[in-house]
């Protein structure tokens, strides 16, 4: 119940902010946000792939005492 009230209030506040923006203006800003989000996803996926590739090719580290320490 409280959560529902809070969500409604939050939506109302977001609406208030949007009402300060012209329609054409909002369209441009939304377009920029979508472009940024798509690029963010692409960069995160590329980073994950890169990490996976590095993990596969990384040689296994020898045990610290390998080679007959005392």
């Amino acid at each position: 119940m409280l959560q529902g009230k809070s969500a409604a209030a939050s939506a109302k506040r977001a609406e208030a902010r949007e009402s300060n923006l012209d329609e054409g203006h909002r369209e441009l800003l939304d377009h920029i946000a979508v472009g940024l989000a798509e690029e963010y996803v692409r960069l995160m996926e590329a980073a994950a792939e890169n990490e996976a590739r590095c993990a596969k090719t990384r040689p296994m580290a020898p045990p610290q005492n390998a080679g007959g320490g005392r």
Partner: protein
Amino acid sequence: MRKEDRFTLTETARRLRVPQHRLIHLCEKEAVIPDLGDASGRGSSRLFSRRNLLEFAVALRLRDMMLPVAAIRALLYVLRAFEARLEQDLPGFALPDSLRGPRAPDLRIVVADGRTIFFSLGRSGEKAKVFGGIPLAPLMEKEATRGGAGSGRVRFPKAVRQGHRTIRVEALEGGRFGRLELSVTAIARDLALDE
């Protein structure tokens, strides 16, 4: 939501190391809208989220760079829309926390020649992709007509209305006169959230 994720005005001012009146000004200009409670009635007080703290930190830096509040309001709208879109594509994405991670790319706000605003996104050491630009002049006109005479309707040039693909980014790359850059990622990492 955890209790420690809600911040009063006093707490927010302390964490950002700024006087409260600077935060109140940004709220009254509707650049930052409190996520968890507004000072709308008698005895009510503003309560801010972690995202609000990032918004304040970005807004304060941009004010220090002399950017008008109207422009800051538009930039914070982009950050909100960016987050809303990513919440759908990457479950668990949330500002500012997702930008604080070690793998997070560098999100920047770039003001070119004091006239046009861009966003850039990329990994450090690599060429970033540029999005924009948002001309400052129509925002200022809109602000001037707020609450006064006139419709307040702003007409953007056609190329701008069509979106980022039509923008000549080489103008930004060349930096014809000069540019200011602000890293939102660096600000997010620097926030005193978990004290």
